[in-house]
């Protein structure tokens, strides 16, 4: 079926069972062998399997002896011996020493959960389950190695680009964010101007823009807006004047007021032509 991930070396086998006493093992092979263990549980499980020990009734003394021999071998090869291995050695020695002590009939402390061997067995089995699951995961067909996703194939037409949605909430959120910043950072007062003036300013400019020339002020007034409309439009024009967005012209007192867009102001053009 599927190939397992590339092996680093084939060193498992009978000659290695007697490690580390067997002097005939090439040192490099032994090293590679020892390096294949993922940790103390991996090594312990190997020893238990190799010695056909029953994991439910581990002969701790024997197992500890062998484990320590391997750890010693690892030290000899100056492998980066993780503290994890030493911790396990200590645990095994503790279990061994306890098992050598005469049993004290202290019923209260001799329950299942307190048996260090049971705990070791539980953890060994849990690791072994995960180890097997890991192997199954590694072999499971996966995208990019064992199969490829089909598509996306090309579209026969240029897709319409969808537009982000218009959102009043987003707009208000953005504006309050700005106001918040201004208040916190700059202590700069943003005048709560009547929006109608600003809006009238835009309307006036837009009218001028489309007229592409001067307009009589009276034509900017929208009669249906009443006196307030006149006032707002007038203030807007004055504001635009102040902002130099337009020019106001009146050739004599009480003559019609002419509003001229700034870009069409005749005096600006010769200026623009000067080098």
């Amino acid at each position, binding site marked *: 079926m599927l190939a397992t991930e590339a092996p680093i070396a084939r060193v498992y086998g009978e000659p290695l069972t007697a490690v580390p006493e067997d002097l005939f093992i090439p040192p490099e092979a032994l090293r590679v062998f020892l390096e294949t263990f993922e940790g103390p549980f991996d090594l312990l499980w190997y020893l238990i399997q190799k010695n056909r020990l029953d994991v439910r009734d581990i002969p701790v003394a024997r197992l500890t002896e062998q484990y320590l021999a391997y750890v010693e071998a690892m030290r000899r090869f100056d492998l980066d011996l993780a503290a994890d291995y030493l911790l396990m050695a200590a645990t095994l020695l503790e279990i061994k020493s306890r098992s050598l002590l005469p049993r004290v009939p202290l019923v209260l402390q001799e329950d299942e959960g307190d048996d260090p061997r049971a705990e070791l067995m539980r953890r060994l089995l849990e690791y072994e389950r995960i180890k097997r699951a890991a192997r199954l995961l590694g072999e499971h067909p996966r995208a990019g190695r064992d199969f490829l996703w089909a*598509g996306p194939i090309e579209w026969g037409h240029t897709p319409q680009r969808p537009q982000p949605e218009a959102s009043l909430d987003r707009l*208000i959120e953005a504006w309050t964010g700005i*106001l918040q910043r201004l*208040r916190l950072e700059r202590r700069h007062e*943003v005048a709560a101007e009547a929006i109608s003036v600003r809006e009238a300013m835009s309307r006036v400019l837009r009218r001028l823009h489309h007229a592409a020339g001067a307009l009589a002020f009276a034509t900017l007034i929208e009669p249906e807006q009443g006196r307030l409309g006149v006032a707002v439009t007038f203030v807007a024009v004055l504001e635009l004047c102040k902002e130099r967005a337009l020019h106001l012209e009146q050739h004599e007192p009480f003559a019609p007021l002419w509003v001229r867009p700034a*870009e069409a102001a005749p005096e600006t053009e010769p200026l623009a032509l000067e080098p």
Partner: protein
Amino acid sequence: MTTGPFSTKRIVEAALLAADEPLTLDVLRRLFEPDPGADILASVLAELQQEWSGKAVELVCTASGWRFRTRSAIQPWLDRLRAQRAPTYSRAVWETLAVIAYRQPVTRGDIEAIRGVTVSTQVLRTLEGRGWIEVVGHRDGPGRPALYATTQRFLDDLGLRHVTELPPLAELEAMLEPLQEVHDKDEDEDQGN
């Protein structure tokens, strides 16, 4: 040429469907050992084209090679597919739009002064392209900067009749504190989009 349980045709088809670029005849030949030759493959491709002729996807040969592509007749359905993932505008876009909406008409310099950061041309182009803002004039002064205002379309898209229907500033000021929380919440939700 062994192809296991699948015919040459099926393997060519699968390779074309899985490829992220068009495959030339020469590349397709590399799928097989030994090489079936150009003639065999050409007839396999012709057969495939025939097989797919009734489908909404067609097999075409372009300058860069063979590829499957959707027929333009299914544009309305595919466009709905894309429309389902509506993009969003960046914070910069919304803030620029907010400044223009509430302070119009404004120059780019005004927007920058209020936002405290440079406004990129891209942001203004995005909003103009969407038809939400337009240049309504120019302010006198160095460079005669353009004055931006929001458009009727902007109001239409937001479902407003008039700019005055935007929530008033004073009200917004009063809402600042609670809004901050709403804002944070929104940001969180955005992550999921």
